[in-house]
């Protein structure tokens, strides 16, 4: 473990975050967008664990933060998928560009 520098983890996490950002902003499919957001949350969690291990290994705060964040991600996925299912049932599409009900 100690022979891996902290910056490696940060670089991998930022690459994962940027890939997720690209997916969330460029996919046409609503479920694809949701998957991109999940990957972004994962990247942030890697950062939190890496900072916990390398900077404050005595305190538990980093791990607690990650567990809270995973729970929020699970809640977000459940509500998001329920919304997508409701939209699909009423509009018969998951293409996010066809859903402009609340756009001016």
């Amino acid at each position, binding site marked *: *473990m*100690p*022979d*891996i520098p*902290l*910056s490696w983890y*940060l*670089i991998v996490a*930022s690459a*994962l*975050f*940027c*890939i*997720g950002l*690209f997916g969330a*902003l*460029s*996919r*046409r*499919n609503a*479920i*694809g967008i*949701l*998957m*991109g957001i*999940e*990957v972004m949350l*994962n990247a942030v*969690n*890697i950062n939190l*664990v*890496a900072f916990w*291990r*390398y*900077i*404050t*290994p*005595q305190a*538990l705060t980093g*791990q607690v933060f*990650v*567990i*809270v964040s*995973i*729970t*929020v991600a*699970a*809640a977000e*996925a*459940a*509500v998001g*998928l*329920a*919304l*997508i*299912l*409701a939209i699909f*049932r009423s509009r018969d599409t*998951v293409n996010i*560009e066809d859903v402009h009900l609340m756009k001016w």
Partner: protein
Amino acid sequence: MSITQVAFILISAITLGSALAMVTSRTVFVAALWMVAAFVGVAALYILLEAGFLAAIQLLIYAGGIAVLILFAIMLTPRVMQPMEGLSRFNDQWMFVAAVSAFLFAGLWALAIRTDWPVNLQRVTGDNIFLLGRGFMTQYLLPFEVTSILLLVALVGAIVIARD
């Protein structure tokens, strides 16, 4: 180069490759399977970081729960399985988004390398899971309870929204 560094590079390559395959694959179903691979890679990174409990949680909740939830939603929406006819999988702004993502990545890379992190490589002593469990019942009781209320609210909300 030591064996842990080789393992780190392999795991990172698998994770990032799966994530790239996820955002570029044509069908959502295949994208969801790639997403599971990326989640397993992240769990392996947690193991490298000596956070075994978080790795188990990651496998259970992300690679298990959330992946099954997403696959379930894909199965419930019939025409999602096939790519949309005559339409690209990306919207019209994808080149702009790709440029912004690449720029952000370059910025974060420079930031991660240049900052002088106050690294403190102390060994993790004691039973990590035991300490975590005790922490949740003492020092971190409020976040624990708030999270459980959030989970309950999200559960009820998801059922109400998804019901006919």
